[in-house]
Structures are given as C-alpha cells and as structure tokens.
C-alpha cells in the first residue's frame, strides 16, 4: 500500500506528516480538474484526509470528487451531506440511530445515491424508506441487514424502487413471504438478494421470487425453514451463481438433486450445517454443476464417502475452494481430493478427525496453488506437515493452526522462509515460543497474528514482530502472561497500522503499556480484560490517542474508575461497544459516559457494585435510547422502573439479563 502511494504521488504531494507541504503557489495553480484526476489515484483514507487539510481548493476538489461516505456519527451528517454533493455510496451502518425523518432528509440531500447501507438501523420504518426511494431514482443497492424492525411494510416501500439490483435483508425478522413477494414483484431486475435469518419466509415466497426475478445471481437463504420445494424453485433460476444455504435443516439430498437438475450456472454453493445433506446430495450437485468453484460443506455429515470424492474430478478444473470442516477425513480421501482438484486455492479441514502429516503432504504435493489452509484443531499434525506445506505451497497466505499443539518453531521456520507471502497465521494454543516469532517476523506481509494461550511468548518475541511486521493489523496475545509494557512498546513503535489488539489477562501490563499504545491512531478494537494494574490514566491515554476506538473491553479492570469513563466520554467519540463489568465505577461516571457517547450501542454493565439503582436509572435514561444491546444483572430487572425498560425496548434495545455471583478473580 505504501509502495503504491509513493509511486502514484509526486513526493511533494506526500502530506501526511505535513513536513513536505508544497508551497502555496503550486496549490493555487492546479485546476480542479487536475486535482480530481490526482485524487483518482489516492485510495488510502489517511492520505485523503491529509489532502483535505492542504487548502480550500483541495478540499473543494475532494468534495466534488468523493463518491463514498461512511459517517461515524449522525450529528455530522448534515454538514457532510452539504459538503459532498456527488455521493453515490452512503454507508450509514455506523449511525444506527438513524430514523425515518433523518433518512428522508439524507435522501433529499443526496439524490444521486446508488448504494445505501442501512444495516442495524433498527429505528427505521417504511416512511423513511419510501422517502429514500422517492428521492433517489438511481438507487441500485440497499442493505437493511440486522434492522430488526424492518418488516413487510418496509419491504413494500423498498420495492417501489424498480431499479434495485441488490438487496440485503439479513435478519430482518419481521419480513414474511408477503414482504418478499413485494420485493420480487417490485424489483424484477434483482440480481443479488440476501434473506438470511428471515425466519418467516417459506417455500411459497421463494417460489414466487424464482418466478418473478429471473436475473438473480446471488441468493442467500441461510437458516430459513425452507424445504426441497424451495430448491426446486431456485433451480429454475438460469443465472444463479452463488447460493448460500447454511443451516437449512429441512433440505436434504433430494433437494440438492433438484438443484443439480436445474441451471448449470452455479459457481459457489454453501451447504454447511445442513444436517440432512449427505455425500449423495453433494455428489449429484457436483455432477450437475460442472463449473462449481466453491463448495462449503462444513459440519453437514461426518463421513466423507469415496463416491463424492471421486466425483470431485467433475469439477477439477474449476474448483478453487473446498471446505470440509468437521469431517472424518482419511489420508486416502485427502489424496483423492488432491488428485481431483489441482487448482484448489483454499482448503478448510477445521476440526476434521484423521488428518495426519502424511495426508497433508499428499494433498499439498498436488495442490501447489493453495493460499488458505485451515487446519484448526487437527491435533495430530506435527512439523512434518508444515515442512510439506512450506516446500510445496509457496504462495500460502493464510495458515490456521489453532490447537495444533505438536508443531514447533522448526516447522514455522520453514514456513517463514519459504512462504514469504504469509499474511495470516493463527497459532492460538500451539505453545510456540519467542524463537518461532523471530522466524515468523521474516514474513513482512503479516497482517494477522494470533498467539493466544502461548504463554511462552515474551517481550523478546514481540520485539522481533514489532521491528519487522509493519503491516500487522491484528495481534492476539490472549493470556500471554509474560508480555509486559516493553513488548507493547515494541509493537506500538513498529506496527503503526494495528487495528485490533487483544491483551486480555496479560496481567503484567500497566498504564505505561497503554501509554505506548496511544500512538496507534488506527487501533479500533482493544480488549483489556482482567488487567488489574491498569488505571484510569492509562485508559485516558488510550482514549485520547486511539482516535478510531470502536470497541473496548475493560471487564475486571479493577483499577479503572470514573476518571477513565470521563476520558472515554470526552475523547472516544466513536466508541460503539464497551464492557465495564466489575469495574469500580459510580453512577455519575456511568451517567456521563452514556449521556455523552453518541455512537455507543452495546454496553455490558454487569456487577457494577458502586452504581446505585438511581445511577442505573439515570444513566440509562441519559443514553437517549441509542443502545441496542445491554447486559445487566437480572436482579435489576425488578428494581429498574418499567417505564425505563419499556422505553429501551421501544427504541430497539435488547437487554440480556445475566445472573451470576460476584466473584473477584485475578
């Protein structure tokens, strides 16, 4: 990414650190057209931000050029929409409190919208959607996933947009067949539709959909209670390419047979967790669809029959992804898979029993193009498997080895030396040590590194990572008890782009470590569970420094008090998810926190023994109904006023009542 930036931009344009600012003369000379052309080549949002700060001219050019927007808070919407007039893609998923009036106003301000994401907008109703559809004639894609309030009425309003080609309605629980029929009749050109978790939808609705929307290419019917009849209808879709039907328990082999009799255009199928599907159904599917590229059959049935494996040769030229999680895999079956599917790019063998070093070596000897290898919980694997992977699959990018406890640093050394493209490695519970990290640090492309439960890891290992893996985005150090502030300092100085960091139960970490982290501006998720030594001052440093903070877990941080909450309330404006269970905070701090943070959606407030009932009452009222999820002790259910609970419920907040004893650990 950084390489791209430097080639595409003249050096004087590199403005991020501000020291290379060109003189004012140049900025005024460049016309808007030119600026826009330059902007076409700037992709990184940080660079864009720097661009905006150059001058008014640059800002204007950027506002004319900008097509996408993802506002983080609703309050900023008016100003943003006034500035960006040519928006086409608007993602409002970070402002879940958006309601009908707000959406109507947004739509009126941005008439050229094509793609709108309204995921998790649980206060949205049909009036807002109606206004959106009426105001934006070019609407193409609408995402309403997880908007639990969306039902048939809303679907009907949406269906007024005739030109819609993509609709996501995942987990819109109130949508029934009628709503689906509205969409099907209203949007005949629909190409992509997601109705995962819309549990009210039945075969009848699917049948109508298949009749009315012949253009469908992508369909997600996961977890629906549909039967083979639906697959019969779906098989009539001539252009269907991707079909996701995870957890459709009423579908069996007969349904897959029907599907294979239908159109031959299917490229990707996901039948994972379909309990009644067996080898026979998969065999017919493979026979019927010769251009299948992706098959996910995880957790369907335990036994992998040779009939299915031998039929895999039907799709040997096209198949690239094969996921067989939870199967009973023998060494011969992996050999057959390797022999049939030479072009495999991804293989998932998570939780498969019977996977051995020999079978892996036979597989990778043929499938040399593998990029993603998921071997989670294949307990019998040793370094030999890693040797064969490293020797054969030079282009491996993702290697998931959780709970492969027999592997050692020797195997990882080979991996690190041979697979320089490695981007993701999961070594959770593998018992690796600092030496292994030293080898792994050779993979400079590494973005995800998971080292949870590897208690041998210490600051030395992290120092290697920090010094070499500058691209690291995610680091998991769950229960790496030997890690101290120094290790964090090494990470913070080397991995500037880190976004997710898990430090749960790394009990040696103190405020100094958090102070070190505060230089990571892009850090969005921090988990600090059970760090008894950190105090409010460390939290304050994080809140001030990590401007992108979205998720914070402070459970059992016994030293974090109101001052920490004040800092969060003051600085962590984008905070969406917060756990402060067991923290010694008071009602005042809580009240201030919930009243100030406008983006907060999910709060866990278990065992806040310093907060009185009035404190809870006031704080929750102060949250203005923004909250979507709330975790409280069940004892509070009776003492909190029913009005308050009703208000929360009306605003779409789900409260999880937990009942567990107060036990102080650590």
């Amino acid at each position: 990414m950084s390489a791209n930036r430097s080639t595409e931009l003249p050096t004087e344009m590199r403005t991020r650190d501000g020291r290379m600012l060109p003189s004012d003369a140049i900025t005024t000379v460049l016309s808007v057209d030119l600026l826009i052309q330059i902007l076409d080549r700037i992709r990184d949002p940080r660079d864009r931000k720097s661009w905006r700060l150059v001058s008014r001219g640059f800002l204007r050019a950027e506002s004319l050029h900008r097509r996408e927007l993802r506002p983080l808070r609703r309050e900023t919407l008016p100003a943003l929409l006034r500035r960006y007039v040519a928006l086409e893609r608007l993602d409002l998923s970070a402002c879940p409190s958006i309601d009908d009036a707000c959406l109507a106003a947004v739509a009126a301000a941005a008439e050229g919208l094509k793609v709108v994401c309204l995921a998790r907008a649980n206060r949205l109703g049909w009036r807002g959607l109606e206004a959106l559809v009426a105001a934006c004639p070019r609407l193409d894609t609408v995402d309403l996933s997880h908007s639990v309030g969306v039902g048939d009425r809303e679907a009907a309003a949406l269906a007024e947009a005739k030109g819609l080609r993509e609709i996501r309605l995942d987990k819109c629980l109130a949508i029934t067949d009628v709503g689906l029929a509205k969409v099907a009749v209203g949007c005949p050109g629909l190409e992509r539709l997601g109705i995962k978790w819309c549990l009210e939808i039945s075969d009848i609705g699917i049948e109508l959909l298949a009749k009315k929307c012949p253009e469908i290419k992508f369909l997600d019917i996961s977890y629906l209670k549909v039967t083979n009849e639906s697959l019969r209808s779906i098989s009539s879709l001539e252009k269907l390419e991707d079909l996701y039907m995870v957890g459709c328990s009423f579908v069996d082999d007969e349904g897959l047979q029907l599907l294979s009799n239908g159109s031959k255009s299917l490229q990707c199928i996901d039948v994972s967790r379909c309990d009644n599907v067996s080898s026979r159904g998969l065999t017919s599917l493979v026979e019927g669809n010769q251009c299948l590229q992706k098959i996910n059959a995880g957790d369907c049935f335990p036994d992998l029959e040779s009939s299915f494996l031998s039929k895999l040769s039907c799709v040997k030229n096209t198949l690239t992804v094969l996921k067989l999680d939870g199967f009973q895999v023998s060494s011969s079956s992996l050999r057959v898979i390797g022999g049939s599917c030479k072009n495999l790019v991804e293989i998932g063998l998570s939780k498969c029993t019977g996977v051995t070093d020999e079978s892996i070596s036979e597989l990778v000897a043929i499938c040399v193009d593998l990029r993603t290898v998921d071997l989670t919980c294949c307990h019998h694997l040793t370094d030999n498997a890693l040797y064969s992977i490293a020797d054969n699959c030079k282009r491996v990018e993702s290697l998931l080895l959780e709970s492969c406890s027999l592997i050692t640093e020797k195997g990882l050394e080979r991996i690190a030396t041979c697979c320089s493209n490695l981007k993701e490695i999961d070594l959770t519970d593998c018992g690796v040590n600092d030496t292994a990290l030293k080898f792994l640090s050779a993979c400079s492309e590494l973005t995800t590194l998971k080292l949870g439960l590897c208690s041998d890891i210490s600051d030395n290992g992290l120092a290697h990572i920090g010094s070499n893996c500058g691209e690291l985005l995610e680091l998991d150090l769950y229960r790496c008890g030997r890690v101290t502030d120094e290790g964090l300092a090494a990470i913070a100085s080397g991995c500037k782009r880190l976004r997710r960091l898990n430090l749960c139960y790394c009990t040696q970490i103190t405020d100094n470590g958090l102070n070190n982290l505060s230089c990571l501006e892009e850090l969005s998720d921090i988990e600090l569970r059970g760090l008894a030594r950190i105090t409010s001052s460390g939290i304050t440093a994080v809140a001030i420094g990590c401007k992108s903070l979205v998720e914070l877990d402070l459970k059992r941080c016994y030293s974090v008090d109101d001052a920490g909450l004040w800092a969060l309330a003051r600085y962590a404006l984008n905070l969406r998810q917060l756990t402060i269970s067991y923290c010694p905070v008071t009602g005042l701090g809580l009240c201030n926190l919930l009243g100030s943070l406008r983006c907060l959606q999910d709060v866990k407030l278990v065992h806040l023994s310093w907060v009185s009932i009035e404190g809870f009452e006031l704080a929750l009222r102060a949250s203005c109904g923004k909250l979507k999820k709330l975790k409280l002790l069940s004892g509070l259910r009776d003492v909190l006023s029913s009005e308050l609970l009703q208000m929360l419920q009306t605003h779409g907040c789900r409260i999880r009542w937990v009942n567990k004893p107060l036990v102080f650990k650590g």
Partner: protein
Amino acid sequence: MKTTPKASMKSSSSSMTSDAARDVNHNKTFIQFNPSNVPYAPRPGQTFTDFSPPFETESQSLYHPDREVKTSNQFGSTPTMNSLMLDWDPRTMLSNLSFLEQKIHQVQDIVRSIIDQEEHQLPNRTGELAVRQQLVTADLTCILIQLISTAGTLLPSIKNTLLSTNPTVVQLGGVLSAPTSFVLNGSPQHNEVVTPDITKGSEYAELMKSFNTSSEEGDELIKCLNACDGEVSESVPVEDHDLKESDDGIDGENLPPGSYEVLQLEKEEILAPHTHFCLICGKGFKRDANLRMHMRGHGDEYKTPAALAKPTKELNAEPTLIRRYSCPFLGCKRNKEHKKFQPLKTILCVKNHYKRSHCDKSYICSRCNTKKFSVIADLKTHEKHCGRDKWLCSCGTTFSRKDKLFGHVALFQGHTPAISLDDSKVSGMSEQAEGSVVMSGMEGIIGCNFPGSTSQDIKSLDTKVADDSFNYLSPMNFDSCSFDGLDEFSRPFSFLPSGSCNFGRRN
C-alpha cells in the same frame, strides 16, 4: 311417492317371486352400478375365464387383483364372504339354516297365537293384532333376506366349481334367478365397457382381441340364459354408460334412469330431527341403534340378539337394490321430475342439499357477520377460516390460503400481495387503538346475532361502523405525519415511534 326405506325393502323382496323379470333387472343393475364404483374391467374378465378355460391363466394374471375386490363387492361386503365363495363352509351354511328354522318357528308361534285369539274370539285386542301382523311381516322379511343371502353365498361356489364345465349351472342360475344371472349377463356389457380403455397396452389389446373372438361362445351362453330368464337381458341398458368413475358419489355417478330405485322424502321428513320412528309408540330417534334399544321396552321379542343386531350387516350379505334419493323441491335438478335429474346418494346428502338449497340460511358467522349458512357444519367450517387468514391481493381479490394468493400473484403481472392490516402495528398503531377496533367489532356482532330478516340493515350498518373505525385507526392515517426534521439537520430529531409517545418526552 313417499316411501320409507323399510317399506321399499319389503316391496322389493315380496315382488321377487311374483315379478321375477323386474326383480332380476334390479338386482343385476345393482351389480353393474355398484355404488362403490369398482372398475368394471375385472368383472368381465372373471366371466371370461368362466366360459373360456384355455385362456384362463393369462386373464387371471391380468385381472387377478381386481377380481378379488370385485367378487367381494358382489356377494358380500365382508372379506369372509369372499372366502366363503371361494371355499364354501358347510358350518356357516348350517348355522344360517338353523337360524332360518328358528325364525320360521317364531313366525309359526305368532301366527298360531293369532289363530288362537281368533278362535277364542277375544274382543278389544285389535291393536295387538295389528302389532302381531307387523311382527309377522317383519319376521318374514327377515327370513327371506336370510334365505337369499344364504343362497347367494352358496351360488358362486357352485358356479366356480361347475360353471365352466357344466352348462346346467346356467339353468340352475336361471332357477335361482337373481344371483347367477348377473354373473353371466355381465359379459356382453364388457365388450363395450372396456374397449375404450384398450390404449393402455398392446398386451391388453391382444387380450381383448382374443376375448372378442371367444365372446361368441359367451353370447351363446347368454342366449341360453335369456331363454331361461325371458326378456331379462334385453332390458339391460348398458349402452349409455358413462365410463367415468368418480369417487364423488353425488355428482360423478351417472346412473342410467331406471337402474336404481328413487326415494323421495317429504320436506317435513327431511327437516325432522328424527329419522327412525318406533312402529309401536311412534317415538322418533336420530339413530337406528337407539331405536333398537328403545324397542326392547316393547316386549321380549325385541330383546333377541337377532332383533338387536345391526340390520345392515345382514342386508349387505345380499345384493340389495341400489337406492337413490330425490329432492322434494319441484324444479330442482335433484328432483326426479327434472329433465337432467341427478339423484342424491344418501339421506344425509338429501338433508344437506335441501337445507343448503331450499331453506333459509339461519346460521350467521359471528366473526365476519356476513356469511350465512343453513347447515351448521358449514358454519363451523367457515368459522375456522373466517377473518384470520384473509390473504388479499393488490387487485382486491381475497384468498383463504396464502399459497393460493401467491399462485395468483405469480400468474398476473404487477399484482402483489397486500400488506395485511395486522402487520401495520409496526407502523405505529397502538395496542389501545387495536383493542377498540376489536371492541367495536364485538358490538357489531352482539347486535346482530339474532337471525331474522329485519335485523339485516342494522347488521350491515354495524359492520360498516366497525370498518370505518378500523380505517380511522389504521396506519394509513399516519401518512399525514410530516417530516418535520427534513431541513433541520442540526437539531436532534424528535421524531419518535408513535408507540413510544407516552414516555418519549422524558428524554
């Protein structure tokens, strides 16, 4: 022509001896138009085997499964009868005969007692005499039926063993009239009946061909039989059969006129709550079984197992006359005077038909308040579906079932299912408002629950009121809500879901 089933039964059985030709005709048609509508094909096949032994194996292989069904239907509805026919049991025969003997003795006793009374010149006993006479007739009928059924079970077994070899059986059949004659009379009918179905397969066609050639033989047999029976077989109207078989006994069966006995109950009889009346005291009962229980009180003779037994069982053993019913309403298609008369199959059909077509609809659905029924079962069926599942299309058509609506929507361009009003709760109709709609609906119902023509207007008015209030409370009225916040970005929106008005202000 008001004839009770019992009376007709008597007449038919008594005419058996005097008017043999007509009787045979009746019995035969019963076989041909067996109400259970068993396919015809097997029957002729059977007769075919009877007079064409060389062909027997093939035809059996083809017809065997159906043949069993057929025969059981013919000579008794119970499988035991079937086995009787195939394997004649002398013990059953003996028990039947002894039963007959007993019965005859009973009748003898009664008649003797009557004679005794006459001899002693006892006055004031005319009523008792009439009762005794009735008893005698009833007993005689019973004896006749038993006799015929015994003979009926006997005959096929004779036929099976002898018919194919010994032509004298045909004569025997003639002597015994009914049961044998229809066995043979079926064969000419077969030619016409089955031929249209030949398309089924070449094997079948071949069989038919061979059958047709050999049927001359059968014709001879029939001629022989005809000689015995007189003009019996000529009168059989086989040509105008509708070959279509239908499970729906009422509309589907096309019995040729005259092939069945037509009964016409009077209006009072149809609408009467009771259908079984005690011949002694006149008390009415809904069920025959209850009547029989009641009869025990009238004397010891009704306490015998025979008198208490279900009469139909015995009747079934004997091929009874096919019986159909006519609606007493003149001009009705179900009335026998109608040109295209279509008879009703059972008394229950008569009752339901008469109530549905010619009576006031006095049962009103308490839910929708509009649908009326004259048969209470219809009302109950309707109430199961009324109101709850109203599937409405955008074109205004309503459906009782969702799949029907979706089929309709799939068929017509641009039609969509209308959002049902229950779903509109989401859009802000408070529970309170909904409750009041329900309440007003209830009032409407209460106001019009009295059947009668005068309340008609009030009723419709009430429902209208209910509808209006519903519209008033329906979410459509919330359309008028304006988007206050449209231009006011900067101030926080106070737009709250209408359901939350009560506590929204607290913020």
